[in-house]
Structure formats: structure tokens, C-alpha cells
């Protein structure tokens, strides 16, 4: 499939803010107008939803020059939101099926649309909707019991593994070069990183299986990189250091995943995702020390000792690389 999407390179982000704000106001008014007249008639919502999405795709496929992109965006962006909102309202009683449909429609719209910004938003939307499908399937979309359900935890685990797999696959950008998503690897990485970090919230802090899984992944990545750049005796020292570091993250899931993410992000020089995973890592390490069942004075000794170890590692790396 050709990538002939119009790239929104020349649209300044203040303009995008104005369009976003205006679009939300227009959508809210339209939904309110329809709701007043139609009330519980779900068929009307379905019809409006289909029409809005078809119109949005048609507008975003119009073969205009880049100068006319503002016009196309102004029309297609509110139409997409209207279409998806009416879709939700129509299918609120069958939420799981509705969310699956929304996911499929988002991907289809991405494939058919040609405006770069619209496609980015549709990709992000699809990646956010997927976890909600599982949440609604286990009847926890609007309840507070989500965090206590083992099914939710398993689903989140599976989604995180899948998303991190997609994230890692973007290293080989030539695989995607001739596909529709070739120009959207950064968007995919951002969406998968953000959703994975958000889903960490539903992984129990004592889920060592999760932590060990990602610690092993981090160790494998570290080994691949060490074999690529290090030879001789230093390679064995590198393996030992990597093993110690990765093993230490195996105690806590909220540390293990961010470390994997940080390694992958830096490998790809994706600094936005690096920031996301770094913040998640800082939160994870803070929660880890907070959850330790020991006196504050012992925690302070442990923190100072950990700090000293990392500073020693810093000096060791500086020494061997001179």
C-alpha cells in the first residue's frame, strides 16, 4: 500500500490547539442537538455514526495540495470524533462488541485516510481502545474492581508483551518501509509505550513472574548489544554487570518493564519514549523503596548503599573506557 499521505509538517501546534478546542466544542454541540431530538433511538445514532465516518474518510482522502490541508483537517477531525462518539452511544448496551467495532473501524479509517495527523490520531485511538475491550469483557470498565481481578492482570500482561514486541519490531524499519505504517513508526512507538506504562498500574506489585519475564528480556537485549560492541575479557565483565543489573529489577514489575523500554528507546534514539520509560522507572523505584517493610533508618542505609554501588559502576565504566 502506498504512503501518499499529506504530512502536516507545516501546521504549527498553536493552530492544532485552536482546531482541537473548536472541534471539541462543535462535537459537543452536535451530540447535544441529536440527543435532544432522538433520545433513545439507537438506530439514528448508528446511521449518524456511519455517515460521519464515511464523510470523514472521504474528506481526508480528497486529493488536495498541502495548502488545503487545514480545510481537510477542520472537516475530518470533528467528523471522526462525532462518528466514534455516536458509535459508543448506539452500542453502550453491548460495550465489548462496540469497542471491537471501534477498533476495527479505527484501523480501517487509518488505512483509507490520507491526512498524516488524522492517521496518527486514529493509530493512537486504536492502541488505547484495545485494553478497554478486555476491561469491558471482564465487566470492569466502570467498576473499581479492575485492579483486583486476575483476568485483567493477565490481559494487561498479554497486551504489554504484545505492545513491547511491536515497539521492538520497529528497530527493523525496513520491514515497514513499503507498508502503510512506514511513516508512523514514531507514533506507534509513542502509543505502545504510553499504553504499556499506563497498564503497569494493573499489574500487582508482587507479580514476580512479570518482573522476571521483562528482566530476562532486558538481559537478552544487553547481551545482544554487548556482543555487538565488546570483545575479549571485557565481554565477560559486561555480561556479569548486565546480569546483576537485570536481576535487581526482577524484584519489582514496575522497574523491570521500564528498563526494557529504556534500552529499546535508546537503541532507536527515540527520546520521547525514553522520557516516558524514565519517568516510569523513577516511579517504579520510588514505589519499590516505599513498599519495603523496614524502618526509615534502614531504608536510608539501603538507599545510600544502592547509590554507592551505582556510583562505583559509573567510575568503573569511566575507567575501562579511557
Amino acid at each position: 500500500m502506498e504512503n501518499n499521505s499529506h504530512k502536516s509538517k507545516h501546521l504549527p501546534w498553536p493552530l492544532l490547539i485552536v482546531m482541537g478546542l473548536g472541534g471539541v466544542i462543535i462535537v459537543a454541540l452536535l451530540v447535544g442537538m441529536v440527543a435532544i431530538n432522538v433520545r433513545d433511538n439507537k438506530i439514528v445514532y448508528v446511521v449518524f455514526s456511519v455517515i460521519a465516518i464515511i464523510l470523514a474518510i472521504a474528506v481526508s482522502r480528497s486529493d488536495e495540495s498541502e495548502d488545503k490541508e487545514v480545510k481537510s483537517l477542520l472537516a475530518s477531525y470533528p467528523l471522526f470524533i462525532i462518528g466514534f462518539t455516536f458509535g459508543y452511544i448506539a452500542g453502550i448496551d453491548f460495550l465489548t462488541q462496540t469497542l471491537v467495532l471501534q477498533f476495527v473501524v479505527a484501523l480501517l479509517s487509518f488505512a483509507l485516510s490520507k491526512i498524516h495527523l488524522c492517521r496518527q490520531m486514529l493509530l493512537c485511538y486504536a492502541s488505547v481502545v484495545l485494553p478497554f475491550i478486555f476491561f469491558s469483557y471482564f465487566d470492569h470498565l466502570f467498576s473499581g474492581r479492575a485492579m483486583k481481578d486476575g483476568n485483567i492482570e493477565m490481559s494487561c500482561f498479554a497486551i504489554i508483551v504484545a505492545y513491547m514486541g511491536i515497539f521492538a519490531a520497529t528497530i527493523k524499519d525496513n520491514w515497514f518501509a513499503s507498508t502503510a505504517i512506514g511513516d508512523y513508526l514514531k507514533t506507534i512507538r509513542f502509543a505502545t509505550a504510553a499504553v504499556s506504562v499506563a497498564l503497569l498500574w494493573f499489574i500487582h506489585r508482587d507479580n514476580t513472574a512479570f518482573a522476571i519475564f521483562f528482566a530476562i528480556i532486558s538481559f537478552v537485549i544487553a547481551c545482544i548489544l554487548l556482543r555487538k560492541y565488546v570483545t575479549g575479557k571485557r565481554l565477560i565483565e559486561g555480561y556479569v554487570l548486565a546480569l546483576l543489573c537485570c536481576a535487581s529489577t526482577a524484584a519489582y514489575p514496575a522497574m523491570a518493564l521500564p528498563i526494557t523500554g529504556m534500552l529499546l528507546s535508546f537503541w532507536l534514539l527515540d527520546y520521547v519514549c525514553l522520557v516516558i520509560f524514565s519517568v516510569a522507572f523513577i516511579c517504579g523505584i520510588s514505589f519499590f523503596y516505599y513498599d519495603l517493610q523496614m524502618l526509615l533508618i534502614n531504608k536510608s542505609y539501603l538507599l545510600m548503599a544502592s547509590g554507592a554501588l551505582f556510583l562505583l559502576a559509573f567510575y568503573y565504566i569511566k575507567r575501562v573506557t579511557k
Partner: protein
Amino acid sequence: MDNSITLPGSDQAKTADAKAWLRFLQVFTLTLGSGLMLAGIIFFFAYNWELMHRFVKLGIAVALILAVFAVTMTVKMSDFTRKIAVSVLCGLVGVFWAIFGQVYQTTADSYVFFLTWACCILVWVYIADFYPLWAIFIVLVSMGVIPLFPDNSWFLTLLMLYGAVWTAFFIFAPKYLLNLSAPPSWFISNMFVIEFGMAVFVVCLVIFRETDMLNGGITALNLLMALVVTVATIWYSLRQKNIWLYSMLFVGALIVLECVFIKCLTHEFGGLLLHLILSTATTIGTAFAIAVQYQKWKKEKSETSTNQSVIDNGK
């Protein structure tokens, strides 16, 4: 470790090489190590805080201030690092006053604390000439001064006047004061945005609060101040060709118009339809106005830079 080159014919475009990974490891271990060490030291003092004599508590704060001051004055460092060190120094002054207030149970109002802190660091802030530090200083002074404003109809007028004074100071003072460089565009833009935001808030409040119409004089004064602020913002955005500020003007106008529509139009089908048509027209008009202006300024800037490079090549 060997230095490595990206593999020839590699299908991994734009990935980190050996040097980048080394740098990453160094920054990671240094940041994590110093962060954990600092946290450990803070927790150690936190655990023993109640047992420590008040002179020891104050002594630690003063010792830190003196140590950072000595490092700033004696150690060779880049200009930027020195400014960061002065910022840390200013933060430690706040820590000292907080400990002082706790030790001697001064029961001072919080605005006294912020004003004291601000007064103590004024000279350092001026000498450092570091605009992020100026921003923190303004916040401190505001937290000390704004609670002193009378809580009546004059509050909003005084607030806008206060903001206008700061903005005017940073626009005009660098021309007359030594050691005060011209502020960066992000600084002045954000000051204008905050000031303009207050003006929009005032107008929306006047639209919704009918009781204010009883104090006609004060309402008129508030609206006049809002108008002056708006005109100043338009003047600055056009003069500096600042698309961010220019766009914020339209965002403010959009918000005010929405308030008018909500107040004046009914919430039935006809009213909502009219509201929808007007909002759509406003949004489209706004978007086009910003897009056109942006293209115009972008063209002017590229022409200016082309002419400049031709002149430089000629030299």
C-alpha cells in the same frame, strides 16, 4: 570497549552506536547513583530530625548554603552550570527559612515566608541573569504579594495591574539596567499569555455574573484593563511575529464568544443549532486566520534569512 561503527549495509537506520551507549550508561549510573545517595541522606536526616539540636538543624542548612556559594565562586565551570548552581543556592535559602520557621515556631503567615525568601535572593537573581530563576522569583513574590490584595471587587483589577507591571518591567528595564539581558521570547510570551488569560477570565466573569453589573464603575474599570491588556498583547504578538501569542489571542476570543453564546442562546434545538453554526464559523475563521498569518511570517523569515546569507557570502 571497542569503538564500533554502525554495521555496513545495516537495515537499522538511526540507532545508537557504541559511543552513544557508553554515554547513556555513564549518565544512567551517575544519575541513579547520586539520586539514590541523596535520597538516602535525606531519609537519614529525616529519621533523626527530632533528635537533632536546633543549632545542628540550622547549621546544616547554613553549611549547605556556604558550600554551594563557595563552589559557585571558586570552581571553574561553564556559565550555564554557574547559573544552575546559583538557582540551587536560592532554593537552599528557602530551605533555611523553612527550618527556621519550624525550629522557632514563628507561626508566620505563609506569605511572609515567601516574601522573606524572595527578598533574600533578589541580589543573586539579578546577578545570575537567568530567566528560569527570574520566573521562580516572580512566583515567590506573587505568593507573597497577592494574598495582601483586598478581597473585594478591586481584586481582579489589582491582579491585572500587578501582572502588567512585571511584563512592562521585563520589556523596558533591560534597556536601562546593567547586567539585565533582554528576556528570551518564551519568557515574555508566557507572561503575556498569563496576563491575557486573566483578561479573558475577567470578561467571562462579567458575562456570567450579573451581580457585578451593579458595581458599574468597577466592572467598567475591569473591562478597560482587559482591553488594555488585549491591545498590548496584539501589539507585542504582531511586533515580534509570535505565532504562539497570536494564536492565544484567538483562543481567548473563542472562549469569550462561547461564554456569550452560552449566556444568550437557549438550550433548546434552535438555540443549539444557532450556537453550532456560530461556533463552526468562528473556529473555521480562527484556524484560517492563524494559518494565513503563519505562512506569511514564515515566508518573511525565510526571505530575511536568505538575504542575510547572501550578504554574509558577499562579505
